[in-house]
C-alpha cells in the first residue's frame, strides 16, 4: 500500500502544525498510524510506549470528541492521561496563558495536548514549557491531527493521495481543518479545491495552491474526495451568509450535488455535523460517507503522533 518511509524517526519535538513538515515526515506519521490501527483492533489494545509518561490534555475550548480521542490514544499507549478543565475559569481570573503554562510545566508533564480558541496560542505555550506540545486546534490556524487522520482515511480508501482531486467545502475562512488539510494534501501531491461562498473564503486563498470555486456543481465536478466543513451557528444568520436555508440550498451537500463528483467519491466531515445545514442526513449516513471511519483513524493518528514525539522525551 505504501512505500517504506524513508525516515526512522520524527525529527520534531512538538507537533504545532502541518506547515513545516516535509512529505517524508507526513508519510512517516501515516505509516505509524497504520500500525496503531492494528493495536486498536486487538482485544488487548495496549502498548507501553508511553508507560510512566504524563500526558495532560489542556483544552481551553470544549471539544468532547477530540479530547476523548487524545485521551484514548494516550491510554492505549500506557500514559497517565489527565484532562485539565481549564475551559474559561483561570482565564476569567485574569491569568494569562503563559501563567497557566508555567503552572502546568511545574507539574512536569511529558506531553501537553492543547486546544485554544486563539490562533498562535499553542506556539506561544510551546515556547514556554519544557515538554512536547501537540496542537489540538488553535483558532482558525491549524489542526494537524485532523489533517493527518483525514489523509489516513483517504489513503485507506483510495490507496494514495497524489493526483486525487479533493474538494474542501464550506466555511474555509474560519476553518483550521481546512488550513491544515490544504497544506498536507498539497504536500502529498493532491489537487486541492476549495468551494464556498466568497464571504467564507480567506483573503489571499488563491495563493494557497488551491483552485477556488463558488458553486458546488463546478467545485465537485470529478472530485475523488468531498470534504465538508462545519458552519458555526453564529455565522449562519446574516453575518457571513444570510440564512441556513439559503446556505443549504447552495452549499449543503445533498445527493444531487454529490452527483457531480466521481461515482466512487467519498464524503468526509470532521464533525460534529450540522445535519441539514452543510450536509443532508441522507448523505451523511449514506454509503459513500466515511465519517465514522474518520473517528477511528483519529485515535490511530493520535497514537502515532504521541509515540513519535515520545521518542524525543528525556530517558526515552
Amino acid at each position, binding site marked *: 500500500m505504501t512505500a517504506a518511509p524513508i525516515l526512522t524517526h520524527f525529527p520534531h519535538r512538538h507537533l504545532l502544525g502541518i506547515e513545516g513538515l516535509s512529505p517524508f515526515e507526513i508519510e512517516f506519521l501515516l505509516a505509524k498510524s497504520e500500525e496503531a490501527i492494528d493495536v486498536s483492533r486487538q482485544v488487548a489494545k495496549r502498548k507501553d510506549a508511553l508507560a510512566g509518561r504524563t500526558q495532560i490534555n489542556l483544552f481551553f475550548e470544549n471539544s468532547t470528541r477530540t479530547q476523548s480521542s487524545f485521551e484514548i490514544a494516550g491510554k492505549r499507549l500506557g500514559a497517565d492521561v489527565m484532562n485539565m478543565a481549564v475551559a474559561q475559569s483561570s482565564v476569567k481570573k485574569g491569568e494569562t496563558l503563559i501563567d497557566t503554562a508555567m503552572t502546568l510545566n511545574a507539574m512536569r508533564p511529558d506531553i501537553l495536548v492543547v486546544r485554544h480558541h486563539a*490562533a*498562535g496560542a499553542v*506556539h*506561544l505555550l510551546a515556547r514556554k514549557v519544557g515538554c512536547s506540545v501537540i496542537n489540538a486546534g*488553535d483558532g*482558525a*490556524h491549524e489542526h494537524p491531527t485532523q489533517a493527518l487522520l483525514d489523509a489516513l482515511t483517504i489513503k485507506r480508501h483510495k490507496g494514495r493521495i497524489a493526483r486525487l482531486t479533493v474538494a474542501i467545502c464550506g466555511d474555509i475562512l474560519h476553518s483550521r481543518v481546512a*488550513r491544515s488539510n490544504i497544506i498536507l494534501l498539497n504536500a502529498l501531491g493532491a489537487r486541492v479545491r476549495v468551494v464556498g461562498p466568497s464571504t467564507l473564503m480567506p*483573503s489571499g486563498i488563491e495563493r*494557497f495552491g488551491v483552485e477556488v470555486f463558488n458553486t458546488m456543481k463546478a467545485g465537485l465536478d470529478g472530485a475523488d474526495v468531498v470534504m465538508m466543513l462545519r458552519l458555526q451557528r453564529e455565522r449562519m444568520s446574516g453575518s457571513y451568509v444570510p440564512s441556513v436555508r439559503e446556505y443549504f440550498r447552495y452549499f449543503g451537500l445533498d445527493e444531487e450535488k454529490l452527483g457531480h463528483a466521481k461515482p466512487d467519491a467519498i464524503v468526509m466531515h470532521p464533525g460534529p455535523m450540522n445535519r441539514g445545514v452543510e450536509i443532508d442526513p441522507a448523505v451523511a449516513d449514506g454509503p459513500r460517507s466515511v465519517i465514522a471511519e474518520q473517528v477511528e483513524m483519529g485515535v490511530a493518528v493520535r497514537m502515532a503522533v504521541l509515540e513519535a514525539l515520545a521518542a524525543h522525551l528525556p530517558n526515552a
Partner: protein
Amino acid sequence: MTIREAISATGLPPMLIERARIVDPSRGLDAVGSVIIENGVIRAAGPEVLNQGHPEAAEIVDGTGLVCIPGLVDGRVFVGEPGAEHRETLATASAAAAAGGVTTMVTMPNTDPVIDDPALVDFLRRRASATSRVKVAPMAALTRGAEGKEMTEIGLLSEAGAVAFTDGKAAIANAALMRRALIYARDFEALIVNHVEEPTLASGVMNAGERASRLGLTGVPREAETIMLDRDLRLVAATKGRYHAAQISCADAVEAMRGARERGLDVSCGVSIAHLTLNEIDIGTYRSFLKMSPPLRSEEDRVAMVQALADGLIDWVVSSHDPQDSEMKRHPFAEAADGAVGLETLLPAALRLVHGGEVGLSALIRALSTAPARRLGLNAGTLSAGASADLVLLDIDEPWVLDRAKLASRSKNTPFEDARFTGRVLRTLVAGRTVYRYGRG
C-alpha cells in the same frame, strides 16, 4: 536632571561644538561647521560661525566625524502617566527619549484620566517640568474621555498648553462630530489629529491578506484606513480646517494625501518608524511585540511609505511609542495589546533608510524634527540662531545591537529586539543642558 533644572540653565558655561557635520533642514543646511550655545540658546550654527572668534570659557566638544542635528520632535508618544505608571512614567519615557535623541515628546491624551480638561493639561506640564529630562508637548483629547461623543474645550485647552487635539488611539468615527470639530477648531487655529482607521473595518489584528489567512488571524483591510482618510479629507475640503492624519500605512493613503495637497488643503500626515522599517512578514510566528494599529502591512506598502517620505508626501516620522507591560503581551497574538516602544529606536531605525540610500539625511531629519515642530508651532526643530539649544550629536556610522533589557523605557516591548543598527546618539542637549551622553559624546 529635569526640564526645570535645564531651563534655569543660565549660568551654564557656553558650549562650542567644533568640526561637526551640521544638518539643519530648517535652513537647508548640511555642512561641516561649529555650533555655539549660550544660556541654553543657539547663538550660531554653521560653517563660518567661528569668524567672530571663540566664546570665552566654553566647554569645547570635538565634533569631528559626528553629525549635529536639531533634537527630534516625536509627534506620537503614549505615556502611562497618569494612570498606568507601571508601564511608563514621564520620567522613564524621557530617559528613553533622551537616549534616542528625542528632545520633545508630543504626548497622546489616552491616559487614565484622559487628558480632556485644562487642569489635566496643566498637571501634565507641571509633572513634566518636575520629572522629565526632555520637553513635553501634550496633545489634548478632541472629545471628552476620548469617547468620540462630545467635543472638549478646544480654546481653554489650547490656552493651557495643548498643542493639538486628537483622541489618540481612537478614531473619530462620527462624521458629523468630526465636521463640527474641524469647523470649531478653525476659530482657534487648532490642529485636529485623527487616527485614520474605520472602526467597523478594523476589528482584525494584522494586515488582511495571505499572511493573516495563513496564520488564521483576522485581517484589517487597507480600506479601513483609506475610507477614514478620504472622509476626513473631504470634510477638511468642506470646512477649511487644519488636519493631520496621525499615521498612514498603505500606498493608497499616500495617493489620497497627494490629491489633498494638490487641492491646497491644510493637511499633513505621519508614519511610524515601524511602518517604514518592518512589514507583516516580521510578525513571523505570532510575535505580539509587532502587533500594532494600524497593522504592519506588506513590503509593497512599506516601500510606498519610504518613497512617500523621500518625496515629501509624508510630513512626520513618529515612534508611536506605546509601552505595554509584559502582562498585556503575555497573550496569544489576537488577544495581546497593540503597541510597541520606540523612543529609543526611532532615530537608529530611521537611519537604516539613510544608509540604504532610500532617504536623504536632511529629508529624514526634517520629518523627525523640523516639520512636526513647525506644524505644532514649537520652538524646536531648528539650529538657527536664537532657537532653544535642543540638539543631538550622533555617530552616524557606529554599529550596535539592541539589547532589550537595556532600554531605558519601563516597558520593553520593542519590535527591534536584537536588531542591528548603524548610528548611535552620543549626546542629547535640551535647552543647552546635556541630558544624555554615551561614549565620546
